[in-house]
């Protein structure tokens, strides 16, 4: 698990959105499991085609700050929608897989509800199950708890923590410093569009730069 931290406007969200192509890169490239996935528009040869993008994007799950559940579908239908569209398995099998994922995020009893009948934290857990239903190789989290009130943050973080312990590859943009430093393999500190410092949490804290010290000064790290 890699956490990306840094002040607002430092490019964290833009970076994570370029990792699955929601924002197009100008320059540079992204490889996914060793295969070319995305390439900047100004690179020689231009961006890779839509086909390469579509083949790769199913391997990358994304969880948004604003949940973005489909309001006209039930919780279960939200989770089943994408694997069903891609024809991963027959409906009965997908239904059981989706219910199992909802169970994993603690939302099984709400499977028949619509998103507007759920709290923010519950919606975000459904969004995590929806992304997991595609069996992604990598999960991206774009400030998954920033739109939640503090009481609900814990439930969502607990789900992410469980995934981290299972060894799921994850990139998470977050303002939850305790969470980031406790669970990440690597923490990346960004400012003004650059990576200022990166490394394992303990190392990073010991060698923190003056700028990062200022960023973390009000945070009580457990």
């Amino acid at each position, binding site marked *: 698990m890699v956490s990306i931290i840094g002040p607002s406007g430092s490019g964290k969200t833009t970076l994570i959105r370029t990792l699955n192509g929601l924002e197009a890169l100008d320059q540079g*490239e992204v490889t996914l499991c060793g295969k070319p996935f995305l390439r900047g528009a100004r690179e020689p040869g231009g961006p890779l085609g839509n086909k390469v993008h579509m083949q790769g994007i199913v391997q990358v799950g994304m969880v948004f700050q604003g949940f973005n559940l489909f309001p006209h579908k039930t919780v279960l239908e939200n989770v089943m929608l994408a694997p069903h569209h891609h024809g991963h398995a027959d409906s009965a099998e997908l239904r059981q897989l989706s219910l199992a994922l909802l169970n994993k995020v603690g939302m*099984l009893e709400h499977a*028949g509800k619509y998103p507007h009948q759920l709290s923010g934290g519950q919606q975000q857990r459904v969004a995590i199950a929806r992304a997991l239903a595609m069996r992604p190789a990598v999960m991206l989290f774009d400030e998954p708890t920033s739109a939640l009130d503090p009481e609900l943050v814990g439930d969502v973080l607990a789900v992410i923590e469980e995934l981290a312990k299972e060894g799921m590859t994850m990139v998470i943009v977050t303002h939850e410093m305790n969470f980031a430093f406790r669970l990440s393999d690597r923490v990346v500190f960004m400012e003004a569009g650059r990576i200022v410092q990166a490394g394992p949490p303990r190392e990073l804290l010991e060698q923190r730069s003056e700028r990062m010290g200022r960023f973390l000064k009000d945070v009580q790290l457990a």
Partner: protein
Amino acid sequence: MHFDWHYALGLLWNADFWRAVGTVVELSLETWLLGIVLGFLVALARQSSRRYLRDAAALYIWFFRSLPLLVLLIFVYNLPQVFPGTSALLSNPYSAGLIAMVLSETAYIAEIHRGGLLAIAKGQLEAGKALGIGYRGVQWLIVIPQALRVALPTLANEYITIVKLTSLVSVISLSEILLVGQQLYTQNFLVMETMLAVAFYYVFIVTVFSYLLRRLENHLDVTRRQPRPVPVGELPAVVSRRSGASAGQGAFALQVRGARKHYGQLEVLKGIDLDVR
């Protein structure tokens, strides 16, 4: 004043009128449904990233909204005078009327759909894209159901407009409600009595369909839906996939090299390298 109530009431059982009601319902429903489908395509073209599609859609909407329906009706109906090949289709007042009305309504309904499409949050499209669903899938599964729900009150309103516009098709001799009435009063000169019956039939159609469309609206309103219990059964175990297994030991799941990005003048990413195992 003389008003023949007996005659006016008798017209409510007139078989010609009820046949005309059937014609009006059929013509208006077909216009409405075809207009909704074609209008959606025009609305999508209007938002397309391809310039020629955008321009073509804008041109279509501009032209057919500017043209009075009456003019279009007469024009379409008389087209066989110039192109005799079209006479098989267009000499029939029903099909000529349907074509003219669909041409005109598609332009209006395209603008209604545009309103519905604008109401869909951008995040919905992004969520679909992030799940690897292509353009058509996103439209069909995510955008259309939501946009239609948003546009439905306005579309229902447009249906009522269409019902009343069908009276114009009388000028090309389709025996709809108004023409049946006119044929009656040119024989017996009971204009007021006949037109009262004509008015009744239009009000009747609009009342029935307003009620049905309101029912449809409520049916599609997810905020009114009650959660249903979902039978669970036996659940399989799910463990996250480790990407290391598919990429081989020591490989990176995700690797970024020299990522740069500008928004206009502002450089938001200034060369990022990132490896995620």
